[in-house]
């Protein structure tokens, strides 16, 4: 187990280094030079020179990469000259809002999708299976912005049941004090995630059903109920855990859309605003943070899976 964990952690470290390299390369693909972008078109060559020397931009590229890495290790993700604050500050303010949006959405969609997917797999090719499959396909195929805007149209404009935007006068945990405003953003995410998780749960349960230990459990006279609960649910749920790690980029992507629709100030919206402002440090900072979070998420999912299921350990 220790060997597996170490190997997996080393692998994650390598992938994180490559992510930083990709982001560093993107930084250097930017048109014009950074000094010019910050100081403006009227800056004199002398001022540009001074800026470049002060920020190490005149050093060889490999050294600049090492500088960049050392800044990252010290928690410095760069500085947004557009917002006049550090990228870390921007992210620190926005990430709690993401958590308030995404965590309930994931929990609710798992609560719905896991039983639905399992029931579908256990009663395959019956009416409910077809109906759920059809619904999942349609939800999956709807562009998420359309889903969100239709919800706004139906429930905020036509029926006037719910506010059309996320709570605007508070952020982070404070938003929970105004749950009505969170219903539509969370519902948008839930509709998209359910499609994904229920399909996945269904195919995972079908895979599990074909295993020998299920036959054994039935052969020794276990009731269908406890087979389903103890063997099938347990094993299929494990693979959903892994899926969560793998789907972080997708979760952030749908998050960006929902934040944009409901004006919820998370890192997705920060990123989108930065794109409009050509605020490259914030854009690259967000990309880096999501990339690293995904790599770590995958690693934790794999290690967690290995703890829970000894068969997958590498040695």
């Amino acid at each position, binding site marked *: 187990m220790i060997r597996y964990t170490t190997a997996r952690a080393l692998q994650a470290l*390598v992938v994180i280094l490559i992510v930083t390299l990709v982001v560093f390369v993107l930084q250097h693909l930017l048109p014009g030079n950074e000094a010019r972008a910050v100081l403006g078109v009227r800056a004199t060559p002398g001022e540009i020179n001074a800026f470049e020397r002060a920020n190490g931009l005149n050093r060889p590229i490999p050294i600049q990469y090492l500088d960049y890495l050392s800044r990252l290790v010290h928690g410095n993700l760069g500085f947004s000259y557009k917002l006049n604050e550090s990228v870390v500050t921007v992210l620190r303010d926005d990430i709690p809002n993401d958590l308030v949006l995404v965590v309930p959405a994931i929990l609710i969609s798992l609560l719905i999708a896991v039983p639905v997917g399992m029931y579908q797999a256990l009663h395959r090719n019956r009416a409910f299976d077809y109906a759920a499959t059809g619904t999942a396909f349609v939800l999956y*195929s709807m562009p*998420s*912005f359309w889903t969100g*805007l239709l919800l706004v149209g139906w429930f905020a404009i036509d029926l006037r049941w719910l506010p059309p935007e996320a709570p605007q006068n508070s952020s982070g945990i404070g938003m929970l004090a105004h749950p009505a405003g969170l219903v539509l953003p969370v519902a948008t995410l839930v509709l998209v995630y359910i499609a994904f998780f229920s399909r996945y749960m269904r195919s995972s349960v079908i895979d599990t059903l074909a295993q020998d230990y299920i036959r054994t459990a039935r052969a020794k006279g276990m009731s269908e109920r406890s087979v389903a609960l103890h063997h099938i649910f347990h094993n299929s749920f494990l693979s959903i855990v892994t899926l969560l790690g793998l789907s972080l980029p997708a979760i952030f992507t749908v998050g960006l859309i929902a934040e944009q629709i409901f004006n919820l100030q998370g890192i997705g919206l920060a990123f989108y605003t930065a794109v409009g402002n050509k605020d490259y440090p914030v854009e690259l900072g967000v*990309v880096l943070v999501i990339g690293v979070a995904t790599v770590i998420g995958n690693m934790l999912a794999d290690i967690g899976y290995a703890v829970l299921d000894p068969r997958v350990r590498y040695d």
Partner: protein
Amino acid sequence: MTDVLAGSSLGESVPRPLLPGDGGLGDKQRGQSSLRLLLRTFAENKLALIGVALVVTIAGFCFLGPLFYHGDSLATRLMDYNLPPGAGMPLGTDDSGRDVLLRLMLGGQSSLEIGISVALLATSFGAVWGALAGFFGGLPDAVMMRFVDAMLAIPALFLFLFLASVVQPNLWLIIVVLSVFSWLAPARLARGEVLSLRTREYVDAVRSMGGKRSRIILRHLLPNVMGTIVVNATFQVADAIIVLALLSYLGFGLAPPAPTWGGMLSSGVIYFYDGYWWEIYPAGVLIVLTVVAFNFIGDALRDASEVRLQRR
């Protein structure tokens, strides 16, 4: 979730946790392709036939429709904005007085063209990348696949928006950039297959007859990986169409006035309050139908290729 859940199409089989040096589908072995069996199994699948029928209908609507239904989609008639469906305009006009039905046809052309180009480019590049990694193994494999892991960790939409903030996207740029972020899944699939194929007897046979590496990869390994790759390409078309719609919504799709389904949808939904349903639903329904159709076909192809494996 699309592809957005890029690379994680709905029907993708259950991935096992990633192990160092894991071959992915390594335990699946593949023999001679028996195309006929695959096609027969495919044809027995009702959803597959629905999918094919939908794709044919939609493609016909988009590419043949404009031959029968005339009009100038780019002409703005500011006096005729937001007209409800009526004589001469079965789906009314949009907020610039342009014919919605004709724009749906033309927008579908670009969606399908981009989706299919991306699938072809991405899967061929990914297949070759994965095949090379799997074939050489060792350090090259490790380096190539960790690079794939790193790219998979970065959400494609974010990178695309970043690039869009640097350069103005056009048709070719969109195809290339979408492909750049779509070749990762096929690369992993191809590598897994090649890892198991490269130790097979026929590869040893080619090698012992003095066949070059390039010949082994191109003539023997890649054709055997095709099944998996074709299935994945189908899902790629669907994913690309959704990502394209998201980009249009966020304002970074094809530049206006080029019609795209995503663009029409996002400019139409703001009229929800006014009840202009013809600007809100038709484009969305077409996107959903197209994406569902390609997913049906992909699912059925995969099932069919698994049946083929079982009967082998």
